[in-house]
């Protein structure tokens, strides 16, 4: 690596912050739309579950920096 961890974080922090806020807003958008629909019961879609699993991958401690790879595998049809 040509950069220190601090240099990398300095470059990445705001963009990562923005991505997280956007993600929160996207979940809110789905919830609001779901609230407006007349069907009873909570809106369910397997893709929402995938997104929530992805959040878990982001926060797991890992000895390898392979979160992006694991996220892409999570979103892949492997059967």
């Amino acid at each position, binding site marked *: 690596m040509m950069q220190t961890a601090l240099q990398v974080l300095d470059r990445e922090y*705001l*963009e990562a912050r*923005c991505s997280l*806020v*956007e993600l929160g*807003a*996207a979940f*809110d*958008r789905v919830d*609001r739309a779901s609230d407006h629909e007349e069907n009873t019961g909570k809106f369910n879609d397997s893709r929402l579950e995938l997104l929530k699993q992805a959040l878990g991958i982001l926060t797991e401690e890992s000895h390898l920096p392979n979160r992006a790879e694991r996220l892409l595998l999570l979103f892949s049809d492997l059967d």
Partner: protein
Amino acid sequence: MQIIQPHYHAIARTAQDYERMAMSGVVAVAEPAFWAGFDRLYPETFIDYFRQISEFEPTRAADYGIKHYCWVGVNPKEAENPELSHEVLKQMPEFFKKPTVLGIGEIGFHKTTKNEEEIFEAQVEQAIKYDQLILIHTPHLQDKVRGTKRTLEVLSHMNVNPERVWIDHVEEHTIREPLEAGYWVGFTLYPITKCTPKRAVDMLEIYGHERILVNSSADWGPSDPFTLQECIVQYRARGYSVQDAIEIFHNNPVRFMGQNPKFDIKPVRLETYEESRSSLVEN
């Protein structure tokens, strides 16, 4: 459709931006006085800057059929130098007489310091004395909540009419209080550090469109004047009509800035020929 860009730092942008804005339907921009990226040392530098945005910039915009208005003021960052700021304030009333100056802005807090507060209060007092509109900047990122709360506290002790005050750069965590207190609020669309077009549309859906302005700011930093048009596309993609969009992106700026009679653009409404004819017959 006709669009007004209510917060635009034209001196930091190229003529090509004016040209492309004109091609996309922008009919007017308003330019608040802001920080130039470095701290100025002399009051005279501010005065020349005010001359640039009140005398020269309208001519550059006019080349593309765009009306240019502006605001004068000492921005929050340079308000940290009270001696310099007070010298600038002494000369600001001369600019209130200019035909395109709408009021005092953008003023307020950067790091919410005592010096910033002193100059903020002095500028609000000046706006009240000279019956000027007020445009308030709220701080960036981690400083936004504290600065917005202090802004509202300071204003609550001053004799301002909230309808003549625009509190800018609000986001999801700072929009509620200013709106409930009767102020106008602004969403500033930045690629990363403020609001994004999609989130702006979310807030329009949640809070309605009364007393809300949307702008791109577009300055010398990472910013893009066309995030405003991107927001309009997002808004329309969610099923809202062109007239709904006009209400937010044209008529709301007219409603706020039109409180100063120098801002002579009127609200517009789409009408078919049939509607136009039938209203003539009825009258």
